[in-house]
């Protein structure tokens, strides 16, 4: 395997012949401290399969050209690849060389062969083979959704239950597929940012940052340090309000209305801080390729953030002293570190099982290192504690970044990519409140996008949701588990 060191921000890209792919994957999967972060394909005449591996030193991207519409059954070697296998099958028509069924993931049931795709249509469309059906009638399927409670996203659950405990759970995720990656093709990074932010609105900053970083890597430019710090401030603000929202959702799921109100007061105040500092409650339009469009109002941040965080902190303390609340959280929706590693989970969900998975290592975080908050136990309560710890850490980081200085600067992007083969593509990443977000962008010589891959943290963590719900949980635990994951269907379906 020939390594060409295109090491931008710790990314190494490697070509792997199709023959070696299985072996290389097996070696990397076994290597300590290495994790399969993403897998995706791109189709420029010939389909190229890319695996993104996260390592201590940075990210490793392996590129393999696939002929014959088949590639080794990677999900048996690295199980985390399963969702991507399904996605690649319905988008590009190539499938792993295994008889195992592939699920319908994003394309709706009515999507025919002429439905717009990133590549070619698969031979036969995937089915809901993953929908569990019971044999023997001792359990039944409890349909839930897509139109669910008030003010939540559309998502369909099938719960298989024996009347009391949850035997199995599965999701239909195609109700919200908006073809974001598809519509990014042919746009400039600046135009594309508009959609990238709206792929998962609740982590607009993280996805936007990852996408911008990918585009910058593809064009070989780096944003100014002050702009990078501005992005970091926005990212931590986003984490803060998401954790507050998750706390409110937890209270709602456990039926503790007073706690919900307290958390929502904190949430609303944090959102108002966002609006005051960046002019948008959800921090849309802060980041743009090459830098940032807006700078925070430092005075406002310094004045209002501590008060708003104080609300959050006091609400959390009161919650931790409410037994009826804590009892519901403990030993509910347990995930083991083994689960997290096997399914490649990220973010608070993974950190609550004791893994130290965090993408905040380089860029602005190199100078202001993050102390990664972890917990063991892997249950809802552990996730709750991780969220609280991270909220405190975010406030500290924001202080440091503000001291170091922030600005609305941007590095001018070259109008044209340097159309050499192999370059013109780049990987970007950021740590959203839901976990690591990855983006990969390939530009043509006019600087227009030929393939953009967005992978919000939700995509990874929904994989852990059904495992967390299975067994030893009863019906009423599921809303609690969902709140503790705090994922979005929008990010999953894109």
């Amino acid at each position: 395997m020939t390594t060409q060191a295109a090491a931008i921000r710790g990314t190494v890209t490697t070509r792997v012949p199709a023959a070696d792919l299985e072996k290389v994957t097996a070696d990397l999967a076994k290597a300590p401290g290495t994790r399969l972060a993403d897998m995706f394909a791109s189709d420029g005449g010939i389909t190229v399969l890319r695996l993104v591996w996260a390592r201590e030193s940075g990210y490793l991207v392996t590129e393999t050209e696939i002929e014959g519409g088949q590639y080794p059954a990677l999900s048996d070697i690295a199980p985390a690849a399963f969702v991507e296998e399904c996605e690649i099958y319905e988008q590009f028509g190539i499938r792993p060389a295994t008889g195992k069924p592939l699920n319908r993931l994003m394309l709706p049931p009515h999507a025919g062969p002429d439905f717009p795709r990133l590549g070619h249509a698969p031979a036969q469309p995937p089915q809901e083979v993953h929908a569990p059906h019971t044999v023997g009638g001792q359990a039944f399927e409890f349909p839930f959704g897509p139109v669910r409670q008030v003010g939540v996203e559309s998502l369909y659950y099938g719960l298989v239950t024996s009347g009391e405990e949850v035997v199995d759970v599965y999701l239909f995720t195609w109700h919200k597929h908006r073809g974001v990656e598809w519509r990014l093709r042919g746009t400039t990074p600046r135009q594309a940012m508009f959609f990238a932010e709206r792929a998962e609105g609740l982590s607009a900053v993280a996805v936007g940052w990852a996408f911008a970083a990918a585009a910058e890597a593809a064009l070989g430019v780096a944003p100014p340090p002050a702009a990078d710090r501005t992005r970091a401030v926005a990212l931590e603000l986003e984490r803060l309000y998401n954790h507050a929202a998750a706390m409110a959702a937890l209270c709602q799921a456990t039926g503790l209305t007073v706690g919900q109100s307290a958390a929502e007061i904190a949430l609303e105040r944090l959102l108002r801080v966002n609006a005051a500092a960046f002019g948008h409650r959800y921090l849309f339009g802060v980041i743009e390729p090459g830098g940032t469009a807006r700078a925070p109002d430092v005075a406002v941040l310094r004045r209002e953030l501590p008060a708003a965080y104080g609300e959050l902190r006091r609400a959390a303390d009161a919650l931790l002293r409410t037994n009826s609340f804590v009892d519901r959280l403990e030993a509910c929706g347990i995930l083991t570190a083994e689960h997290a590693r096997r399914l490649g989970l990220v973010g608070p969900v993974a950190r609550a099982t004791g893994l130290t998975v965090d993408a905040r290592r380089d860029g602005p975080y190199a100078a202001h290192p993050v102390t990664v908050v972890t917990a063991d136990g892997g249950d809802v309560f552990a996730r709750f504690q991780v969220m609280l710890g991270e909220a405190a850490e975010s406030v500290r980081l924001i202080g440091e970044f503000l001291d170091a200085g922030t600005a609305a600067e941007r590095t001018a992007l070259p109008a044209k990519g340097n159309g050499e083969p192999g370059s013109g593509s780049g990987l970007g990443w950021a740590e959203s409140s839901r976990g690591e977000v990855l983006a990969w962008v390939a530009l043509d010589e006019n600087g227009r996008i030929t393939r953009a891959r967005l992978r919000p943290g939700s995509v990874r963590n929904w994989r852990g949701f059904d495992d967390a719900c299975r067994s030893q949980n009863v019906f009423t635990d599921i809303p609690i588990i969902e709140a503790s994951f705090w994922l979005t269907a929008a990010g999953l379906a894109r």
Partner: protein
Amino acid sequence: MNPLDILYGAAGVWLAAGLTGLLAGSWRLGLRACCALSALAGAAAAAAGGWSLVYGNTRVVAPGPPTIVGGPLQLQMTSLAGVFVAVLGIAAVAIALYAPRYHEPSRGSAVYLAAYHLALLACLAVLAAGGMVTFLVAWETMSLACYLLILRHLRSDETARGAFWFLALSEIGFLLVVAAFVILSAKTHATELDLMAARGHLVPGGWRAAAYLLALAGFGFKAGLVPLHVWLPEAHPVAPADGSAFLSGVVVKLGTYGIALFAFRLVPLAGSWPGLVTMGAGAVSAAIGILYALRERDLKRFLAYSTIENTGIIVTAFGAAMVFHAYRLPALSAFLLIAGLYHVANHGCYKTLLFLEAGVVEHATGTRDMDRLGGLVHRLPRSTVITFVGTLGIAALPPLNGFVSEWLIFQGLFQGFRTGSHLAAILIVLAAATLGLTGGLAIYAFVRGFGIPYLGMPRTPQAAAAREPGQPVAGPALLAVACVALAVGAPVMLAALSRTARTVTGTSLGPLLLPGKLTVIPAHADFSAFSPTYLAVFLVAACAVPVLIYLAGRPRAASVSVPVWDGGMVSFRPRMQYSAMTFSAPTRVTFDALYRPSVSVRRASDDDPAGRSGPVHYEAQVTPVFERYLYRPVVRAVEWLADAIRPLQSGDVNLYLLYVFLVILLAYLLGAV
């Protein structure tokens, strides 16, 4: 002219019906003729039974030659047997109306009809037996005839197994009953039942107790008292529908009749403990019966377990009556006897109905598995209505008959504090509490037993293809009418039964029980009162009022009808509805000490590293405690014994000659002594 004379007629017609069936039962016409005769006789028997309630006991008559086992054929119609005879008659009529549509004319059906009428005659003889020999011969005949009944559809060895369970336990029971009778007749030097009763004081207390306990166990096998019940869930599913209806509606009742016969007529017992034992056995049977019923998916096994529950209730009432008798409270004793007999009548009606309808369901869909049924309300509307009446009855919900009798039994048990003995009072209250639990679970079980097969969406194509035309309706409908009559006509029934009680126990509580025309004051003058008639009328009226209000105030605007709100799903599938087993999952969790469930979950995701979900197989099996820990050892012991004595049967002629020689020698020596 007395009830017995009518019974002669009924018996004769049944005999004729049996012969018709045997000879012509393989043609549709013969089948119909046989059933017509059978129905005629049934009506006569019902009338006779009803009459004998108020008529009192007839003299013992000994018509005809001595029976094959020696001893004369002694017949007598008693008012204690009246209820049972009436139930026998009604059930016979219903089954006769039902059978022609259920059975395909064939040689099998001919033999079956013969066996069935033989069983009818035997049951009649048991009830009308005036002497112990008659009783025993009739009893054994009934067992054998029912054995043939069960073997009607020899589909699989499952059938043979169920029939064998029935026969084996019947024979054990028979031996115990024989022992009980032998003790009594040996001590009283009488074979005539009246004489035995009259000379009861000659029997020493210990022998009395022994005889009673033997009888309780012996009849308990028939009545299905836990743990002697195991034949019911095995035999009922494999028998034809009308056959199992007959088993549950009549044969099982004869077990309770036997217990009542010994308890109230033959053995005047001293002390309260036999009553307490009987009551305890009944209460335990009731609770365990309904708990096992909740774990059944097979419609007929489910009904069989519910039969165990109901006989349990009846026996509890009898036991309590014995206790009150022992504590010198004749009024309460008589009252509980009445309540028990009332429940016998009720259960005879609605359980027969439900089994017949279960047969209709099996006929129409080819399955008895609740989880393969569903949505029958749209496909079998008439039998749905009939089943609903029966279900209301057996779930003891007003305004139907089950409620009346169970309420009376409760009222009686609540009087436990009047015994003056703390132990007895506590035990009686405990029995009442157990029956309370049973009643609650019974409602739960029958919401399930009615809702899962009849409501919702069909779970299988077979269930979706069910059609009503050609299904028998008249028989079950008759029983439904009987259920309503037993509820609305409760005062009449109670008046008749109080006459019976006076005949049996010598205590009259007519005026106390029925002060007004329609009001019943159960148990005690200043405790409670209610009127089943008014209750029924007012409940129906109460349901009618809102309907009328709706019809009156119906919105004039055109109403739009939209599909059921399904959360915007793509399609709603039958597998998404509550199934029988998931519906009763809470009890499985609550009572797992009794069930000892073994849960097995297999997910496609378990053995897959990628954790794909896929087909899920979830099974929760209940440990059959009694079969495993009580009967299996016995069976093993018997087999071991059989192996042990096999060497005697070597097949060697010389050895057999040696046996003969030894026997002769023995006889000679004995003669010499």
